[in-house]
C-alpha cells in the first residue's frame, strides 16, 4: 500500500519525475510519429509499385511466348486466380512535341483484362471528379469542371480501352496512354495534381492565341520499336503514329516518367508478334533468320502455309481475394502459378519450360523498393534502440539522484519494517509509473500529431509563407513534404495499433529497465547507514 501512496506522492510533488515523464513522452511520440509517417510513405511507395503489376508476373522477355490465351484460360479456371492479362514489355522511343525523342518502356496491354488484374483504372488521370483532392482547397482541379464532364468521361473510356475514335474516319483506332510525366505538357500543381500547360501563339497580325497543350484532346505521337526475330536478334525498327487517349499516374515517378501504354494488338503488329501465316518449305525448320519476312520470299509451289501464333512477353496474374486466413501467401501463390504454367508448358512444345520461365511476385519485381522498406524497418529499430537507451539513461540518472536524495526515507521505511523487496518494488513501481505516464502521454501526443499532420503541415507552410512575405516580401516555402514533389501528395496520417503497442511497450520497458539498478541499490542499502546518511 505504501508503494502506491509513495509513488503517487513522489510523482506529483517532485519536478524531476515530471521531467522524466515528459522526456519519455517526447521519446515515445517521436518514435511513433517517425515510424508511422515514414512507414506510411514507404507503404504508399510499394503499393504504387504494385499498381501496374498485379500479384504475379509470368515472363519470358524479349522474344515472348505463344499460346498465351491457353495459359490465361488455365489460370483463370483456377479458383485461386482472380484474373490474368497478357502483356508485352519492350523498350522503344517516343517523339514528343517539338520533336523531342525519348527512350521509354512500352507496355502493350489489353485495356479490359489489364484493368481487371491491376489497378490501372484508378491510375488513369483524366476522368471526371466529384470531390477535389485533399490539398486542392481552392477546387482548382480541371477535372472538377461540370462542363467538361462528358469529355473527361470519354477520355476515361478511351483510356480504359486504349483506343479512340478517329475524327476523320469515325473508326475506333489504337491509342497510347502515357505516364503523366512523359509528355512534359502537364504542370504539377501545389496541391499534387496536374494542370495542362498552355502556350501563347502570336499571329503575324499581332493577335495572340492561347493553345492548350492538352494532348489527349487531339494530336498524335510517333512511337518507334525494334522487333526481334524468334532468336532474339533485332530487325528493322518500326514506327507508328498514334493518338494519345489518356494519361496515367501510378505514384512512382520513374514509372510515370518512362512508361507508355499501348494497345496490345497494335504493339504485337509492330513487333511482329501477332498471329501470322507463314509459308515454309516442307521439312524445313520452322524458324529461320528470315522469319517474318516471308512476304518478300519467292513463293514456291512446294511450300505450305502454317500459322505462327501470336506472342506476348508476359502474363500478369491477380490472386483471388479471400477474407479467410487460409488464403495463400504471395510466395505460395507464385509457386501455384508456376505449377499451372508447368501444365501449360507440358501441353505446348514451343513454349519455354517451367524451369526457365520467369515467375515473380510484385514484391520480387519491386525488390529494390521492398529492400528499402526492410532497411527502413532496420533503421527504425536502430532509432528505437538509441531512444530506448536514452530513456533508460534518463530514468536511471533521475532515479539514482532521487534515491540519493531519498536515502533517509529508505532508512525510515526499513526501520518501520519494509523488506528489501518492498523497497526495490517501490522504485520499480515508480519507474513503471513514469513509464506508463510517459508512454501513454507520448502515444496520445503522437496520435494527436499524426492524425492532424496534414493540417499541421499546412499550418507550418502557411506561417512560413506569411513570415517570408512580411519579412522579405517573398513567401518562403516551408513545406517539409512538398506535394509538388512526387511521393508526398498526402502525408500518411494513421497510426497502426500494433506500432503504437510496440512503442508503448518499449517505452515502458525502458523506464523499468532504467529503474532496475537504482532499485537494486535502494534494496541493498543498509538501513542504519541510510538513517545516518547526511
Amino acid at each position, binding site marked *: 500500500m505504501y508503494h502506491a501512496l509513495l509513488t503517487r506522492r*513522489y510523482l506529483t510533488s517532485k519536478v524531476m519525475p515530471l521531467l522524466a515523464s515528459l522526456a519519455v513522452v517526447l521519446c515515445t511520440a517521436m518514435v511513433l510519429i517517425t515510424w508511422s509517417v515514414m512507414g506510411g510513405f514507404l507503404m504508399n511507395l510499394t503499393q504504387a509499385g504494385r499498381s501496374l503489376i498485379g500479384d504475379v508476373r509470368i515472363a519470358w522477355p524479349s522474344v515472348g511466348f505463344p499460346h498465351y490465351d491457353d495459359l490465361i484460360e488455365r489460370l483463370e479456371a483456377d479458383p485461386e486466380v482472380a484474373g490474368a492479362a497478357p502483356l508485352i514489355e519492350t523498350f522503344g522511343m517516343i517523339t514528343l512535341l517539338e520533336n523531342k525523342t525519348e527512350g521509354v518502356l512500352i507496355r502493350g496491354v489489353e485495356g479490359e483484362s489489364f484493368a481487371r488484374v491491376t489497378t490501372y483504372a484508378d491510375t488513369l488521370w483524366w476522368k471526371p471528379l466529384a470531390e477535389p483532392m485533399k490539398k486542392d482547397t481552392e477546387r482548382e482541379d480541371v477535372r472538377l469542371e461540370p462542363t467538361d464532364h462528358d469529355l473527361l468521361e470519354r477520355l476515361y473510356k478511351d483510356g480504359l480501352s486504349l483506343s479512340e475514335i478517329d475524327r476523320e474516319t469515325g473508326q475506333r483506332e489504337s491509342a497510347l496512354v502515357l505516364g503523366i510525366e512523359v509528355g512534359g505538357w502537364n504542370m504539377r500543381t501545389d496541391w499534387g495534381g496536374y494542370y495542362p500547360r498552355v502556350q501563347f501563339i502570336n499571329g503575324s497580325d499581332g493577335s495572340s492565341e492561347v493553345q492548350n497543350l492538352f494532348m489527349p484532346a487531339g494530336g498524335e505521337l510517333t512511337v518507334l520499336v525494334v522487333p526481334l526475330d524468334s532468336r532474339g536478334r533485332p530487325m528493322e525498327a518500326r514506327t507508328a503514329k498514334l493518338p494519345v487517349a489518356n494519361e496515367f499516374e501510378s505514384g512512382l515517378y520513374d514509372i510515370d516518367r518512362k512508361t507508355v501504354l499501348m494497345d496490345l494488338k497494335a504493339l504485337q503488329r509492330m513487333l511482329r508478334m501477332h498471329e501470322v501465316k507463314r509459308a515454309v518449305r516442307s521439312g524445313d525448320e520452322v524458324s529461320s533468320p528470315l522469319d517474318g519476312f516471308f512476304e518478300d520470299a519467292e513463293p514456291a509451289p512446294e511450300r505450305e502455309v502454317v500459322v505462327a501464333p501470336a506472342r506476348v512477353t508476359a502474363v500478369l496474374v491477380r490472386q483471388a481475394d479471400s477474407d479467410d486466413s487460409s488464403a495463400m501467401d504471395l510466395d505460395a501463390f507464385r509457386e501455384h502459378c508456376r505449377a499451372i504454367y508447368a501444365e501449360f508448358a507440358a501441353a505446348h512444345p514451343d513454349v519455354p519450360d517451367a524451369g526457365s520461365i520467369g515467375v515473380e511476385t510484385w514484391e520480387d519485381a519491386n525488390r529494390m523498393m521492398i529492400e528499402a522498406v526492410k532497411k527502413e524497418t532496420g533503421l527504425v529499430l536502430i532509432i528505437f534502440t538509441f531512444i530506448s537507451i536514452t530513456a533508460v539513461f534518463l530514468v536511471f540518472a533521475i532515479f539514482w539522484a532521487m534515491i540519493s536524495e531519498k536515502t533517509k526515507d529508505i532508512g525510515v521505511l526499513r526501520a*518501520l519494517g519494509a523488506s528489501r523487496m518492498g523497497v526495490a518494488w517501490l522504485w520499480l513501481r515508480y519507474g513503471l509509473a513514469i513509464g506508463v505516464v510517459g508512454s501513454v502521454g507520448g502515444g496520445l501526443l503522437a496520435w494527436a500529431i499524426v492524425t492532424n499532420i496534414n493540417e499541421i503541415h499546412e499550418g507550418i507552410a502557411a506561417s512560413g509563407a506569411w513570415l517570408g512575405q512580411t519579412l522579405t516580401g517573398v513567401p518562403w516555402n516551408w513545406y517539409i513534404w512538398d506535394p509538388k514533389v512526387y511521393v508526398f501528395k498526402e502525408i500518411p496520417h494513421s497510426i497502426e495499433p500494433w506500432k503504437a503497442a510496440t512503442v508503448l511497450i518499449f517505452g515502458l520497458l525502458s523506464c523499468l529497465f532504467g529503474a532496475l539498478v537504482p532499485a537494486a541499490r535502494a534494496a541493498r542499502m543498509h538501513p542504519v547507514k541510510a*538513517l545516518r546518511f547526511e
Partner: protein
Amino acid sequence: MSTPPETTRLPDPVATGTGQHGSESRATTQDRASGDAALLRVTGLRKTYRLGRVDVPVLHGVDIEFGRGEWIAILGASGSGKSTLLHLIGGLDRPDKPGNGKPRATIRFNARDVASFSHAELDRYRCRDVGFVFQFYHLLPELTVTDNVLLGAMIRHGRFGYMAKRADLRKAAADLLGAFGLKSRLRHKPSQLSGGERQRVAIARALINDPTLLLADEPTGNLDRKTGAAILDVLAEIRRERGQTMLMVTHDPEIAARADRIVELVDGRVVEASG
C-alpha cells in the same frame, strides 16, 4: 516518580491480530530488580565497525535486561555507542559474529533470539514488535501527518489488508494524533509543523502498530528545553496509560532522570546507575 491521577486516556490502536510474537506469553528469565518476567535480555553484545582496515570496537559485550512495562534510560557520552545499541536491539543491524574466543551475542526478546533472526523475521520484528523514534524525527516530507503515521500500518498489513482495515486505521491514527494535540494538523505536511509537533507525529507513527517495545534515540536532542520537556511528558503519559516498555537513549542526565531506571554506557559496557 509518582503517577498523577487520571489524565487524558490514550487510545489503543486497532487490535493487531494474532501475528505478534507471544505478546501475552511470559519470558522465562526473571528480572533481577523487580522479579518481573524480562521482556528483553541482551548478553555479550559486541559491535565493531570497520573503518577501512581498522577495526573500531564500539560495544565490548553489553549485558542488559529489562522487564515488561519498564522505562529505561541509557545514558552515555556522545559517540559511546548508544545509537548502535538501540539499532541492534531494534533489529536494524546485527551484532558481531562470534569468534576469536568471543561468545555468541544474544538479544532475547520474549524468549526468541533477535540476533539469529532471518531477514524476513527481522522485517517482521521491526514492523510489529518495535517502534522507533529518532532524534531528527525522520518524517517523510511528501506525506501528510496522517499518512506518515499510517506508514507502519501500511507496511504491516499489505495492500489488501490495509484497504480492508483502512477506516479503522485512519481513525486510530487520528485518535493518536488527537491525543498528542495534533487534531487540527492531520492533513498538514511535516514542513508546516514545529520541531516538537514533528516529534509527536513521529511518536504516533511508532505507536500505530502497538509495538511491545518503543525505542527512542535522543527524542529531545533536537529540541529546546521546554519543548523537550513536553515530549518527555508525552512519553510519560504513554508509559502511564499503556504500560509501554520504553528504551530511551540520551546524553543528558536530567532527561534520563525521568525514566524508571538509568543505565550508563561506559567504554562499550553497561553500568547500572540507579534503581
